[in-house]
């Protein structure tokens, strides 16, 4: 693979959805993080070859949000901008699409990222309501309208939650949380283990915040009424195993194990990285922070989509002759605690590694101090389109801090896929 360098990256704080539209539209988030990142660059925004933005749920008024963000960030009329969508990995797909364009020599300097404002996913009219309304608009006479009024039923007004549609697999009909229940069942993961893992995520984010480990990647946001958003706001001091144990199962009601507390949070956020080839590095005098060594996509049963990281990361390790401990820092996106724990269990299982991954034996265990060391989406939140970019950027930050060399960012994808990216620090 032709070398692709990560020059720098930045993201917004991830803002938890408070059950009403958040303070920023997705393009606001993308613009604010991107313009701050571009400010750090010695080149002008107009020097970019293209802007690629992953977004799982663009709002109806900014469907090609990649172009909207490019224009709003001051990239000028002549820099193309486009949007990619691979559900939860949209923000990793944008990076891979940049790699493609660089590989064939079409681009040498790309801004790639991901964004979503899940708090703004709309409520929709039901089909029954839409049908009634279209009949109403078609009705010309008073009589016809009067007849329609008698056919109206209050339940027509019940909205369809766009976010619930988005979090339901359209092929197998399971909510994402139910696919995680499947993994918990298959790998025998207890509620206690899930809650303990979730508490760990919160604790790690809190200590990372205290030590200022996110300072380099977070761009503070200001809204129009004098509020500053400087940090990820979904993390909680009181997310202890004891407190998490009190929450009710959300997806398989009553007798399930997956709760809001051991799932990732519904969140708004955006993240970007600047990617460059050797040639662009030389042209603009850039100082790369890291290099993307490899990328892999994989697919699996949608009902077990959470194992995606296992299927995507393993081929990369194989290709480069690496064992699990040759990776100095792992970021496995925390869609659900059960799902991360299932990935770990799969790699530890000789049978799974042999039968599913074609390995001679178990791959082994990721040391606890190399996995999601600053927490993950359970505490920070999972603005679907943005997470792929965030974990690639963050694994690089971890390598820089710990002095490690190789990092692996992997993410599970609703619909039954996985994505993984191998990153190396550049001195």
């Amino acid at each position, binding site marked *: 693979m032709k070398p692709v360098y990560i020059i720098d990256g930045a993201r917004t704080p991830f803002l938890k959805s408070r059950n009403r539209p958040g303070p920023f539209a997705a393009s606001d988030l993308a*613009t604010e993080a991107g*313009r*701050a990142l571009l*400010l*750090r660059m*010695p080149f*002008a925004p107009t020097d970019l070859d293209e802007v690629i933005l992953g977004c799982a749920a663009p709002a109806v008024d900014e469907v090609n949000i990649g172009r909207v963000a490019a224009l*709003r*960030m*001051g990239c000028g009329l002549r820099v193309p901008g486009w949007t990619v969508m691979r559900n939860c990995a949209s923000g990793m797909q944008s990076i891979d699409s940049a790699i493609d364009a660089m590989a064939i020599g079409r681009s040498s300097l790309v801004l790639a990222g991901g964004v979503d404002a899940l708090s703004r996913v709309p409520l929709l009219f039901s089909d029954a309501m839409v049908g009634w309304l279209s009949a109403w608009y078609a009705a010309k006479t008073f009589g016809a309208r009067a007849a329609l009024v008698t056919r109206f039923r209050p339940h027509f007004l019940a909205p369809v939650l766009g976010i619930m549609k988005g979090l339901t697999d359209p092929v197998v009909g399971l909510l994402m949380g139910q696919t995680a229940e499947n993994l918990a069942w298959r790998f025998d993961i207890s509620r206690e283990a899930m809650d303990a893992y979730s508490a760990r995520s919160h604790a790690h984010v809190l200590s990372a915040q205290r030590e200022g480990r996110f300072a380099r990647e977070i761009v*503070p946001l*200001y*809204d*129009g*009424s*004098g*509020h*500053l958003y*400087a940090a990820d706001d979904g993390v909680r001091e009181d997310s202890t195993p004891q407190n998490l144990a009190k929450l009710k199962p959300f997806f398989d009601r009553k007798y399930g194990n997956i709760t809001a507390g051991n799932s990732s949070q519904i969140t708004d956020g955006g993240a970007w990285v600047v990617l460059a080839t050797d040639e662009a590095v030389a042209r603009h005098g850039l100082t790369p922070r890291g290099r993307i060594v490899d990328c892999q996509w994989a697919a699996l049963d949608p009902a077990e989509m959470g194992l995606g990281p296992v299927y995507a990361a393993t081929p990369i390790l194989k290709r480069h002759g690496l064992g699990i401990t040759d990776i100095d820092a792992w970021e496995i996106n925390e869609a659900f605690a059960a799902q991360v724990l299932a990935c770990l269990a799969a790699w530890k299982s000789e049978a799974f590694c042999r039968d599913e991954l074609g390995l001679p034996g178990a791959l082994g265990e990721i040391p606890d101090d190399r996995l999601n060391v600053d927490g993950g989406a359970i505490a920070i939140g999972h603005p679907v389109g943005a997470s792929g970019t965030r974990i690639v950027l963050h694994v690089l930050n971890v390598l820089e801090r710990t002095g490690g060399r190789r990092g692996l960012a992997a993410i599970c994808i609703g619909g039954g896929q996985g994505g993984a990216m191998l990153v190396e620090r550049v001195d």
Partner: protein
Amino acid sequence: MTVDRSSWALSRDGDGLAWLTFDRPDAAANTLSAATVDEFVAMLDLLERDAPRGLVIRSGKSNGFIAGADVGEFGAIHDAAAARALVERGWRAFERLAGVRYPAVALVRGFCLGGGLELALACRYRVVVDEPATRLGLPEVMLGIVPGWGGIKRLPALVGAPAALDLLLTGRTIDARRARKLGLADECVPPRIMANTARGVLLAASAPRRLGFPLSLTLTTPGRRFVADRAAKAVEKRASRAHYPAPYAILELFRRYDGNALAPPVGNPAAIDALLATPTARNLIRVFGLQERLKSFGKADAAAVTRVHVIGAGAMGGDIAAWCALRGMTVTLQDQDAVRLTPAFARAATLFKSRLRDNRRIRDASDRLIPDVAGDGIAHADLVIEAIFENVDAKRAVFAEVEKRARADAVLATNTSSIPLEDIASVLAAPQRLVGVHFFNPVARMMLVEIVAGRESDPAALARAAGFVRAIDRLPLPVKSAPGFLVNRVLAPYLMTAMRCVDEGIAAETVDRAAVAFGMPVGPIELADAVGLDICLAVGRMLAKDAAVPRTLAERVDAGRLGKKSGQGYYLWKDGKAQKGVAGVPDAGLTSRLIDPMVAEARAALAEGIVADADLVDAGAIFGTGFAPFRGGPLHYAANEDERAD
């Protein structure tokens, strides 16, 4: 003067429409001089012989339709007969236009002011182009004169008396959409279909707009009286009849003479003779000229500034940054941490909302204003403005860092009001790069910006800074680096004297009343409270050579009563307003006691060459301190007083 026949160009199209294009070959903007009005009438004569199916009147200039009457020509008029002739020429021309047999439409793109709007009003229809640059208004009142070419007659008939009087009495302009909403324009369209719209309006030839009920009542005789009386009460609160006769004349012309400025008999206060008898109109026209002169300082052929970096997000720095973003600059705003930037972004959001209204334009302005704690914007900036607290060491530290990171061609500027530029520039490897760009508070309202030349300042950097000030629609005034520059220097003795009067036991309200009666927009004590008493004290100490600081000022600053910002100064402040008691009757000598020190300081500043000439002293005092514009500035006023005394 010879009549240049090429100002108006006439062509005809296949639909039988005539297209009359106004394009003065001798000027950047279209204005109506005697010659161009005569030529316009000649064009109407020509059309009369072979009447078209309709007439489109449009501009050949890209910057606007018509800016109004030729102010240079008007300013040169000194006797009533010449003024009467000028009014009559335009009045007759537009009466003639209003009476033509064929329909006429004014196609208005860009500014359409004064006589230009009166021409448009005389057409049967108006099509306005929906762009931010399209502005319509009758600003004559701001020059101390009245719209004499039919504006007072035709505008109320189109939009009703209340809206018309609002425009006539304030002189403010409106945009294309507002014009359409008021009924001033028949159509408001994007430029791509403007010509087609003008054609379509003429070919449809529908009945001209009629004012509907109940607005039509405002044009009846009792309606006129009622509306004019109410408007007069509002005017009395803003401008006294003695200082500003023009709004009262406009009301009289509307009430009794159907807008015909030639109708009032000699001796009537609304007659042209009466308006010319006071120096107000002449002084206001002079002020207009001074404003044009200040604008010209920003026209030097210097590279345009498009990216600005502002350091210091306090009241001044934050507002400078927001203003620059509002006016189209890409701005990075730096302070020590994110929290300190927060209030600046809240104020910016308020500014954008109130000035732009359109959501997309508000968003674009917000996108141009970028928080930048790390100072990454310095490397991209054409201009870096430092606006931190007044401490020479802190400023030196800022510029030492800035010089390392800024582009070699970037202009470095300080907004200091009290520290000599040379003291700051000494830290720079290239001290000639530093200039002063001194804004006044509140940035969004104060038109003047002093461009301060230090001993070593590079003239090219000064020219570029002045061009920047013009680009953000402010008025640059070149001044020499000396304590207080021009504006604060002239203002300080006036404020200090006012406070000394309070020391002596005169009520603050009484002092302010004397100044307002003279024509100041606000009294000196209220102004000091608004500026901040701590700042007044610092400036007073810097500028007062030997005089003691007013006792009441020092006491208040010691007690932390700093004025508007702390809620209490000389006055108690509530909801941004000074709570005033009843003013006493000022002593006969109080006014001159307040004004004379200002005049004396203005003379001293001129003698020291702080600005190039006396006109610029007056310009600085008017646009920087609010010195009563109808008096023409402190030096002009003093010269007139001397004349009167002789």
